[in-house]
């Protein structure tokens, strides 16, 4: 049973990790805590649901399209909120507030449109499970882990193998120096939000398949935020590590301590970790950034 709980924990943690990385890259480049990430998570699930249900598109195609929409919406959010604030030289706290407002606005619109109902995709993404001795791993979990790993590999390919990736990394070290070298900050920031939105969209579309589609799905962004804090805000590897850790802590405390106070245990442990290591577990990695 312990092995099964471990599998459960990794399956949950890998979802948190995927969401946390999208959250971490924006922080990495801009030093901004971006809660509008929650809006892209919710949109990732709802667009896949709307496209597959009302336009009757195949589910896989709907999910791909919804990820694209989430990415574009994320870039749009940057354009209409962060961009003007940045041009006016406003402190970043304003963007923090704006991002939280956008998140709540999108959630409110989704509640209105969906009449607050819980629903699900017209069909299951993938049926069946893999059985090894007493341990059962749903095929969906394996697929999701695969997609999560592929997405993260693709992200690092973009960051390390492309010109824009190089520009993003330059900005994350020193945006002023990067600007002096002729790097266009608007393009870099827009691309970063697009990437974050794509990751949020992938996370949302998969969460919709794994659990269900409901308006508060975007609240997962708070788990992503905690995962980043534990792992070391801004560190991509730390975010993955933090996501897995929170997933495991939640699962183990649910299973072996008491599920009703599991959130208290999880957050209590987070406080302890932050007291002992305020820079996060992967604190060293923060220094080298990406």
């Amino acid at each position, binding site marked *: *049973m312990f092995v*099964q*709980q471990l599998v*459960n*924990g990794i*399956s*949950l943690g890998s979802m948190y990790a995927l969401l946390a990385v999208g959250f971490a890259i924006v922080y990495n480049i801009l030093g901004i805590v971006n809660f509008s990430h929650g809006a892209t998570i919710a949109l990732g699930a709802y667009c896949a649901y709307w496209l597959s249900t009302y336009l009757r598109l195949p589910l896989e195609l709907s999910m791909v399209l919804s990820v694209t929409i989430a990415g574009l919406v994320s870039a749009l959010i940057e354009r209409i909120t962060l961009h003007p604030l940045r041009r006016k030289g406003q402190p970043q706290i304003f963007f923090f507030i704006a991002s939280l407002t956008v998140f709540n606005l999108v959630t409110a619109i989704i509640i209105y449109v969906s009449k*607050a*109902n*819980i*629903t*699900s995709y017209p*069909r*299951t993404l993938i049926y069946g*499970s893999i*059985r090894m001795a007493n341990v*059962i791993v*749903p095929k*969906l979990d394996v697929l999701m882990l695969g997609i999560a790993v592929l997405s993260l590999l693709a992200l690092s390919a973009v960051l390390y193998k492309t010109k824009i990736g190089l520009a993003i990394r330059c900005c994350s070290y020193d945006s002023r120096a990067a600007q002096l070298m002729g790097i266009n900050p608007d393009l870099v920031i827009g691309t970063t939000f697009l990437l974050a939105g794509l990751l949020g969209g992938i996370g949302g579309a998969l969460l919709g398949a794994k*659990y*269900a589609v*409901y308006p*508060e799905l975007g*609240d*997962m962004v708070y788990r992503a935020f905690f995962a980043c804090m534990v792992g070391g805000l801004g560190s991509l590897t730390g975010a993955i590590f933090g996501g897995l850790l929170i997933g495991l802590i*939640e*699962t*183990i405390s*649910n*299973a072996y301590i*008491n*599920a*009703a*106070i*599991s*959130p208290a245990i999880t957050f209590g442990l987070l406080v302890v970790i932050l007291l002992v290591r305020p820079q996060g577990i992967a604190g060293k990695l923060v220094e080298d950034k990406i």
Partner: protein
Amino acid sequence: MKRFAVILAILLVAFGSIAHANEPIVIGFITALTGSTSLWGTQEANGAMLRAEEINAAGGVLGRPLKLIVYDHKGSPQEGVLAYRRLVDEDKAVAVLGTHFSNISLAIAPVAEQKKVPVLGQAVEPKVTIPAPGKLNKYHFLAQPSCIEQGQMMARFAFEELGARKAAVLADKSNSYSISQAEHFAEYFKRRGGEVTDFVEYAAGTVDYRAHLTQIKAGSPEVIFLPQYAQPGGMQVKQAKELGIEATFLGSNSLSDPPFVAAAGGAENVAGLYFLFNVNWSEPKFEAFINNYEAKYGEKPVTYHSLFGYDDVTLICEAIKNAGAAEPEAIRTAIEGLTDVPIMLGDGKFTMDAETHRTRNMPSWIMQWNEAGEIVPVQLVYPPAD
């Protein structure tokens, strides 16, 4: 002069009583007309207004017409209390109907004790009428089986009809609807000689139940009781199926909502699940109600809450008739004595228990979801007497 005064007085009294005879009896109704549960509330209000219209067409109560005033509690206890005060202080209601929300009824109950205008509602939380052992709220009454009875009825069905001896329970610690049913299910099941392999509580807002379900699975129960709302219930069933759990699922009346099936991942996942339900729509006695409802509102009743409203008005009119006067105190006493009143829900008869201010021996239906995503009636069950 003296004689003139006497005649004037007689005339005034006579005129007064004529005016009184035509004056409508004001009944308040508090329900959710906006917010996420407005569908239930609108259905409830529609049912109540339909019944009031029928009663007025048949001559009203005590020769006076009935005037139903409906206020919105918006899902909030504060708004519920405000609505009750307004009905009593401004509208001079002699009785108030609603709500079916335990937390709102809990907030109204102490105010009703002060204002002394009786409330008849549908909440399932027994604390609404009995706030502490040995203490009874004199002015509050409930017309739906309590969550104690609902948990016990399901436990008895599992033990006697399904022959289950090992059961597990998964309940939301922060929701009295969920945890109360769970506790009384487990308590009754054990009392009959069954074993509760796991009693797992979770915190509200949980999305991933694999840890809880893996623990439950290890105890290999024959039945798993899920007293939940549609959203968590659906997610739990879906994840349980993914983990290969083959036990029979038992649920509460909220698992009748269609969104439950969607959240559970489709009809094939919920097929075979039993749940407790207040009404069996396929009974012929509902035909007239459904037709009249459709004639008035242009659509068929969507949820059983329409019958809550309909029955509430029937019960309060019966109480006023028995009281012989449209006075709050007399109505309160009459509600306590309601016996075998013909209603729509349960087995069609309603008796108030004067000691608990809840229904006495009101049955519920056990229903089952089938592979086609339809609800099939299984049997009518009564609360256990033991």
